[in-house]
């Protein structure tokens, strides 16, 4: 319970911002918060809230896994810091690069092969796998 108190503002934000499938579980001294954020903005809000409680993320007592929910067939935006996003032949950084998507470019999410790697297609027709953490749904 103590951890839920520590991260209360974060949990409250998740609830009020409409995170779906929200699960808050404490196990062996670590709090696990999972769910689907309605948008990238809500995900950022949650991370801001986490950063206020633990500025350097050093507590080692929280695993916050709340990503913006994106559906296959919808458009997603490339949210790299500034660089291009690699599009690879397969899901993994060991896979050859087959294309690039520009920072802030809107591309199509074809399917989600797993939580980390999504199959995408650029407007030029380049298709391959990109790292999901650099993609956000376009609302």
């Amino acid at each position, binding site marked *: 319970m103590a951890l839920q108190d520590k991260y209360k503002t974060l949990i409250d934000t998740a609830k009020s911002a409409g995170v779906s499938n929200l699960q808050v579980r404490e196990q062996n001294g*670590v709090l696990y918060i999972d769910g689907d954020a309605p948008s990238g903005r809500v995900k950022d809000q949650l991370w801001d809230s986490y950063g206020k409680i633990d500025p350097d993320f050093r507590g080692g007592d929280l695993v916050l896994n709340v990503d913006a929910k994106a559906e296959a067939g919808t458009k997603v935006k490339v949210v790299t810091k500034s660089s291009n996003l690699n599009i690879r032949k397969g899901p993994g950084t060991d896979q050859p690069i087959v294309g690039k998507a520009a920072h802030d470019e809107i591309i199509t999410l074809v399917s989600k092969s797993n939580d980390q790697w999504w199959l995408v297609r650029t407007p030029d027709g380049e298709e391959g796998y990109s790292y999901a953490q650099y993609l956000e749904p376009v609302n």
Partner: protein
Amino acid sequence: MKQKIAKALLLFPAVVLFSFFMTGCKSKVKDADVETSVNSELRNNPEFSAVTVSVKDGVATLSGEVKDEATKSAAASEAKSVKGVSSVNNNISIATVSTAPSVEITADDPLTALAKDAVKDNPGVVATVNDGVVTLTGEINKADLPKLMQKINALKPRKIENKLVIK
């Protein structure tokens, strides 16, 4: 003299029978009372709220459900301590744990590969994995830390140890 003995012999079974019926009646009343006492004793502890008791010939039989083995034996000793209980027949069952599903943790081999992918864009950072715990060492710019943490948090690790030097 003989008559007296005969009388006594006649009286004897009567006394035996009488006392048998008397104790029979007495123990019936007593069992119900003991049952009430045991019940009120158990009701003092909310952990025993799902425990039921029946007493027959001084033997208290406990049934129902409690959360664990310790509570089960505690209920028995509680019942045993009630006056009139000669022994306890402990038929209490332990409730099956019905907590939320346990947290899914990625196994070390896939987690190691995933963590390697996750730190790829942060050349100064090394991620090591041991029993689901991802330990981050090396250096990072403060501005890059949240994004890296988001990536690692999404891998379903058991825990994240951030030992990065933040510049």
